[in-house]
């Protein structure tokens, strides 16, 4: 037997090590559709508990929207369950083309190619477009999927300090001799909720003849006046050369992603991106669901407007209660606790109070920056947010952190 007791023991030791280090991820089982109100089994085997979900990427509340569910049902009936093929053999249906055209129109780009996920889009896009003669210059806080994509690409890679435009300019000067230069950033940074300064980045990219790449997974559908994304917010709709994004967050929450941008770059992905070439096409019901999502968002800004006002209400409520928040204006609102154990204790107590929110700590965020990351949705009603604020206040009072500054919290609980 190849899988010997010694091998099993080796893996068990690694897993125990993760548990000892507090890094072991435990999944909480949800027995209801994704929504503001969910039913959760946690710990495993316990009776179901109704809680308010305040940590989903369901920004627009479309994950279980009846029109989206209906469209997915209709797509299932009209186009089947799966295609049993990659796109270029026999996996491209009319609705895949339709969705690609709709995404291009929505984002204001020249062309779009679908991927099974945005993780796959980021894994494939760089190696499809760049060579060893080029350089990728990425913000130091970009998403893990971008880091993996960069690793798979033969181009030189360098980084600039988070959102530091002077440092980015230094790097563009340093690498002036490369054939192509690509500046890479998230649109909205998922842990802090801040946005990339795309207007300044676009100016630098123009000045130094560099391509601009943005992963807008935490922005598409709701950032910007009409929800087109970070490039709309900063008035640079025509300046971003490549956008990657996901359909697994604001845009319906199921799965799938895309690369959208200059048509030659998209075509390079269609010809060369390995996660695209060697993964199945997106399932027809999911495609039909995303088409409906884009129809809803193109017809009205009602949902992103509600998300914006919910976010303002939530930020104001937490600030008045006396919590320390990360500055920002996106629906990602980090409640700073600084200490890892405190973040776990607060998360546990919030759950007891009927609020589902997760604590993040090192190595997911830097040492000493543990937090509860809250994420607001257009699916939340004010009564959800009021109840969640009551729970936060009660738990914050228990730990004596309300009205306390960062240094005072660190003095009480450590980093």
């Amino acid at each position, binding site marked *: 037997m190849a899988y010997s007791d010694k091998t099993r023991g080796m893996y068990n030791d690694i897993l125990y090590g993760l548990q000892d280090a507090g890094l072991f991820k435990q999944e909480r089982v949800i027995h209801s559709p994704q929504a503001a109100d969910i039913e959760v089994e946690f710990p495993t085997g316990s009776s179901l508990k109704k809680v308010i979900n305040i940590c989903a990427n369901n920004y627009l509340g479309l994950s279980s929207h009846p029109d989206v569910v209906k469209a997915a049902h209709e797509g299932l009936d009209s186009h089947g369950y799966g295609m049993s093929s990659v796109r270029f053999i026999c996996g491209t249906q009319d609705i895949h083309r339709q969705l690609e055209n709709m995404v291009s129109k929505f984002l204001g780009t020249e062309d779009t190619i679908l991927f099974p996920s945005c993780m796959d889009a980021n894994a494939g896009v760089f190696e499809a477009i760049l060579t060893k003669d080029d350089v990728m210059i*990425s913000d*130091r806080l970009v998403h893990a999927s971008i880091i993996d994509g*960069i690793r798979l690409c033969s181009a030189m*890679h*360098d*980084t600039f300090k988070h959102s530091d435009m002077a440092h980015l300019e230094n*790097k563009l000067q*340093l*690498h002036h001799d490369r054939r192509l230069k690509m500046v890479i950033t998230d649109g909205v940074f998922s842990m802090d909720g801040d946005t990339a300064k795309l207007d300044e980045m676009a100016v630098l990219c123009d000045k130094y003849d560099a391509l601009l790449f943005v992963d807008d997974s935490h922005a598409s559908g709701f950032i910007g006046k009409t929800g087109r994304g970070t490039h709309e917010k900063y008035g640079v709709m025509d300046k971003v050369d490549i956008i990657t994004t996901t359909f697994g967050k604001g845009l319906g929450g199921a799965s799938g992603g895309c690369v959208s941008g200059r048509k030659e770059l998209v075509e390079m992905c269609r010809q060369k991106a390995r996660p695209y070439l060697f993964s199945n096409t997106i399932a027809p019901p999911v495609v039909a669901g995303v088409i409906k999502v884009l129809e809803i968002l193109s017809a009205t800004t009602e949902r992103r407007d509600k998300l914006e006002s919910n976010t303002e209400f939530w930020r104001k409520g937490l600030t008045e209660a006396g919590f320390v928040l990360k500055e920002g204006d996106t629906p990602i609102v980090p409640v700073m606790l600084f200490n890892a154990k405190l973040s776990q204790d607060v998360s546990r107590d919030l759950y007891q109070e009927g609020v589902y929110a997760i604590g993040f700590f090192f190595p997911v965020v830097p040492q000493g920056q543990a937090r509860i990351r809250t994420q607001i949705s257009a699916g939340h009603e004010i009564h959800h947010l009021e109840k969640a604020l009551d729970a936060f206040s009660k738990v914050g009072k228990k730990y004596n952190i309300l009205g306390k500054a960062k240094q005072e919290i660190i003095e009480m609980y450590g980093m």
Partner: protein
Amino acid sequence: MEDMYEVVKEYVIDEYVEDDSEVTLDTPLISGGIVDSFSMVSLKRFLENKYNISIPDDKATPEAFDSVNKICALVKECIG
């Protein structure tokens, strides 16, 4: 002539250290998490420009860049 050790240390602090962590000549830079391997390229290019040398890719390893002392040893080797 500028002290190479001070020049390299100052560059490392300015480029990579974003808090008040202390860096000595032997502080582990890459294995210690101060410099990620992604960011090594700018350090390599800085050294090449500053000392007018070419550091072969097979010598620009994370191990060779893991402290100011090791970096300076590599630069001296490349200067010849």
